[in-house]
């Protein structure tokens, strides 16, 4: 039986892959060499809560966490490209969206971005997508 985290990750990553115009993706724990002058995104799954949803024996478990997608665009071209990329991802994961893959449905609590920052030859905007699931 696959870990619930595999199912959650898979659902969120499939949804991310379907974002129109998504650049290269630096998947977690896979070798990726960014190309100077080209955009890419770097997603990662960050679980924050795993707890019984109710009291009693054999309770359903509530999982919560963040799907963080760092959006990298070439440096020195102004903020528009980064803003556009972050907006696309936020739109795809708008709050109250249900993300389904197979029998797993992950619900989105919120999607928000943070301030952009320089990161080597890129400008990076972090997008945090809050999710939860009962299993």
């Amino acid at each position: 039986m696959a870990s619930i985290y595999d199912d959650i990750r898979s659902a969120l990553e499939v949804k991310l892959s379907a974002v129109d115009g998504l650049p290269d993706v630096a998947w977690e724990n896979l070798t990726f060499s960014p190309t100077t002058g080209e955009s890419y995104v770097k997603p990662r799954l960050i679980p924050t809560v795993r707890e019984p949803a109710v009291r009693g024996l054999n309770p359903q478990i509530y999982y919560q966490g963040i799907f963080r997608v760092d959006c990298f665009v070439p440096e020195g071209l102004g903020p528009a490209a980064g803003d556009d990329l972050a907006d696309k991802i936020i739109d795809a994961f708008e709050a109250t969206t249900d993300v389904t893959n197979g029998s797993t449905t992950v619900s989105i609590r919120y999607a928000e971005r943070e301030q952009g920052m320089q990161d080597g030859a890129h400008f990076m905007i972090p997008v945090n997508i809050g999710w939860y699931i009962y299993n």
Partner: protein
Amino acid sequence: MPVKINAKKGGKSLSASIKTQAEEIAEPQVKQKLAEIGDYATRISPVWSGAYVKSFSFVPFGSGSGRMRTSKLEDDNRAMEDQIVREAQNNLRADLNKIDLTEVNGVVLRNRSPHARAVESGPTPRSPTGYAVFAKVKDRFR
């Protein structure tokens, strides 16, 4: 027909009474929740030298202050992690004790460590993507 409201309670004005209630009932509960937030932030923080975790502070909203600890990469204090985290938690509780919540517009959890941005979003020597400490705190307590 006009209704007259007596705005005095026990000889105190209504505003004074509300302030007393806020100080005696609400403030300890809010501070307890803030202490939980601080405990969580320090618990999930990476510890190497301890400078990052000891750079957390609670400050009134709008304040530019906050503690800042610096370190060098060779300052490896991981063996004292428990003690370092306890010290950081005690610092945060001391901050809260100094703040009168009825007199400020909010409280900010801040980390003024020089490498706070790298700890949050990477890269650090041990994590290319950072630890998302503040993102986790916001996610858990939002």
